[in-house]
């Protein structure tokens, strides 16, 4: 048993094997970290295929949320999907920060819209296929190009705060 699957039970191992069987390039990219938790790192180009397989063949039909990560030169997106028995699959893929384009997953998970809008506002992701809608969660007059969850973003001090400092 490799270190990657310590703590996992037969169920998670079976899911890991099915993923690797279908997508051989995932051989060392899928880790079951403990019972009911599986993490997978995929290439951006393979993400949608893996996601669809996980939904349709492995039963991961519930989206918990989407996490955006600023990893320096890349932005990472982790899709936390789960199923009735509590096993949660976390699929991450990275895109270059200078062109952070991802595809919407609303056609698979309609509630993803609000999570994707959050990625747009806070991390500056560009979500292809997501229609017009109300922004979330920043104010309407938030300056363009300011993405507060990026690591290099620093809070600007207002004039009043500067005076009181």
């Amino acid at each position: 048993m490799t270190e990657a699957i310590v703590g996992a039970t037969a169920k998670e191992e079976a899911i890991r094997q099915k993923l690797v069987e279908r997508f051989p390039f995932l051989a060392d990219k899928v880790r079951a970290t403990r019972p009911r938790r599986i993490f997978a790192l995929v290439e951006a180009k393979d993400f949608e295929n893996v996601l669809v397989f996980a939904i349709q063949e492995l039963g991961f039909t519930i989206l918990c949320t989407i996490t955006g990560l600023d990893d320096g030169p890349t932005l990472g997106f982790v899709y936390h999907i789960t199923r009735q028995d509590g096993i949660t699959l976390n699929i991450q893929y990275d895109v270059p920060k200078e062109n952070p384009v991802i595809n919407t997953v609303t056609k698979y998970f309609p509630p993803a819209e609000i999570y994707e809008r959050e990625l747009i506002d806070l991390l500056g992701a560009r979500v292809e296929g997501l229609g017009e809608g109300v922004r979330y969660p920043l104010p309407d007059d938030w300056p363009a190009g300011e993405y507060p969850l990026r690591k290099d973003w620093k809070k600007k001090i207002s004039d009043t705060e500067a005076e009181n400092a």
Partner: protein
Amino acid sequence: MRKVVIPIGPQHPALKEPESFNVTLSGERIMAFSARLGYNHRGIEKACEERTYLQDVYLIERICGICSHTHSTCFVQAVEEIAALEVPRRALYIRTVIGELERIHSHLLWLGVAGHEVGFDTLLMYTWRDREVVMDILADVTGNRVNYGMNTIGGVRRDLDAAHIKSMLKAVDTLEDRTKYYIQVAREERTLIERLSKVGTLTHEDAVKLGAVGPTARASGVDRDTRRDDPYAAYGELDFKVVTDDHNDVYGRTLVRMGELMESYKIIRQAIKNMPDGPIAIKSPRRIPAGEALSRYEAPRGEDVHYVKANGTDRPERVKVRAPTLANLQTVEKMLEDGQLADLPIVIAAIDPCFSCTDRSIVVRRSGVRSKNMIRWEDLRSRGIEWYRENRGIDFAKLNRKLSDRMR
């Protein structure tokens, strides 16, 4: 009929917290609904990256005034998993007990709000009076009515002693009696049944499709509960039922929450009975090794999700929080479809969006006197009883004595 769009919020008497809704009406009928959120966004995820893990426990606890233990537990679980900490079993049981007390205070609060929204203010007064019983217990055990500060990375900060357990079990008995009465009211009181039935309908299919969580989902027959499906703390060792209902409306959501109150009493009794002896925390390193974890927790409002990524320092690389209301708000549009404008407050309230409740002390300013006086809770209660006796001819003294005797 001409369509009219009316804005509701961000500040509006029908809402308990800032959100903004645009409602398109044809007469009194709701044709379309859109929501704008974010007015409460405080940048907590970013702030977490700039603080140590231990500081984050306290910051995260303040995401919500009601589900404070929910968020702190969800966060420390993720950190403990990354750091591979073996949390003492007694700590897991104590977390469970506090979590269920929090659920009781949240559900009783909700029941009062729901009563208020439909003009049944007696229910508000009754449930909020009873809610004081659980708030007193939380204050007794943790030192605070909300933001209990019970969790730390590696366990809990306070143990339960024999006196706590005795008063807790007594409180659970009292509250169970009261809840049985509320269940009877909900099952027999026709005005309440008629007012809540077929209001805010969400079919099973829509609840699943739109990703509803918690009582909102369970009242549409979605049999999901993180406590059972992805057990954490001591839930894997306890016997309880996931309450579901197939009314698919506000009435169903009321029944589910009441049923969950009864299950919470059962869970607390079991957890106290089976609580192992031993330490309540283990020492956690300041620096958390690189890694990532996803933690899930069944909050009173539904599934709370925290993702934590560690980079080997004493500060997290990333903390992501998905509170249950964000998942449930997406169902409101469906619930209001073709509904009446007058139903909007109760439909929104029925997903139990979060609002804060805080302090117990009240500042009274005497007219003509500049100084401020603090008034104790017991004195305020006595003053209220006296006022009603003098001005309304209603004597609550007997009822108050009965409640006090039960708690003694």
